[in-house]
């Protein structure tokens, strides 16, 4: 593993992308920034622009209108960029999977690296998921 990959593991900048969630997952993501969980101690910060992002945190079912937008947004990120599906909605569709507006679970649209199920997942679960992601970066 070269030095750049090592640095990448220690400084993941996350971009938070909500594509049709009920907002509960988004609030739980913000909980990760609070003093109790404090993801900044691992070097993670929330950035405002997809160009700066190393990780896309996607929440919610992808609605039909958002399918194209998710694809464009994924293309706009600087590679290497990982995708994390947060919440059962993004993982599989949850109870909305037969909805008229369902654009398909996230994994059918862009490659997903880690799935974090839960409705909503607790911040601790998200941290566990990110740890899995870090182990994956190693390979």
């Amino acid at each position, binding site marked *: 593993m070269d030095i750049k990959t090592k640095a990448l593991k220690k*400084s993941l900048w996350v971009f938070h992308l909500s594509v049709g969630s009920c907002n509960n997952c988004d609030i739980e993501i913000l909980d990760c920034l609070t003093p109790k969980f404090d993801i*900044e101690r691992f070097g993670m910060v929330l950035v*405002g622009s997809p*160009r700066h992002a190393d990780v896309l945190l996607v929440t919610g079912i992808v609605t039909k209108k958002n399918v194209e937008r998710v694809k464009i947004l994924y293309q706009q990120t*600087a590679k290497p960029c990982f995708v994390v599906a947060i919440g059962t909605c993004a993982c599989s569709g949850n109870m909305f999977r037969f909805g008229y507006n369902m654009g398909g679970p996230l994994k059918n649209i862009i490659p997903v690296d880690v799935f974090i199920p839960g409705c909503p997942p607790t911040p601790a679960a998200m941290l566990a998921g990110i740890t899995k992601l870090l182990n994956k970066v190693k390979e």
Partner: protein
Amino acid sequence: MNLLNIILLFIGWSVFLVVAGLFVLGIERKIAARLQWRVGPPIWQNFTDVIKLSGKEILIPEKANKLVFIIAPFAAFLSALVSGVIIILSLLYGKIMPGDLILLIYLLTVPSLCLFLGASASGNILASVGASREIKLVLAYELPFIAAMILVIFKSGFSTSLYNIIKIQKETGINFLSVAGFLGFFIAFLGIIGKLGIVPFDIAEAETEIAGGVLVEYSGMLLGFYKMTRAILFIVLPVLLMVCFLGGFNGWVGLLKYIVIFVLLVLIKNTNPRVRIDQALRFYWGFTTIIIFISFLFLRV
């Protein structure tokens, strides 16, 4: 000194400035975290960030003016480096360069102008909002800042070289202890908050409203160069303030002075909300400018 020596000197001090700057920024993040009762990132976090950015892909937007978009970060970085090396030359090597204070005033404006140019060249709407805010902010803080620098030049008998300014302060007592110098120090201090673009005046970047503003389209190492520019300015601007008002950078006392200014900056950063651009303009052109012109009345006191 022959040419080779000069080049080696420049490269050596440049590396020092970048490393020290990133380190100082790391300490700043750590203090901010502790103030919010968090653990915070390790103090070498900013090195990690820059190394990571160097490994990332560089994306250039389709609509961008490619040449300006790519050159802007380099120009910002280089002008920050050159201004740092100029200060070091007159502080440590005793070089007398007439007019280097004026040169510094120009050079320290270049990073902001480059941010503005790069953002306008990127063709992004949010970036153009950020660019317009940035240039308004430049207009706002430059007036009191330059007035404070002119005050220093008056105080030191119309000498514009940093070396002479320090020498005169050694003979007649530091500027900070006179009324005009005291007022001038605080105004220049407010000016460098704007120059550094930290929180009360980070209007141009405003992550939460315009998504990084001027930096929104930058990725990879181009973003890294802006980070390093910011880091160098974090060293250069407080040191310039020390040279002009606190009698230079001398040994451990100098370090102590730097730490005091740094702590003031961090405290202001962590206890203030972001202002709007019109508030910033009113603050700099109203209150601040009035104070600096009043302090001119006390020049001979």
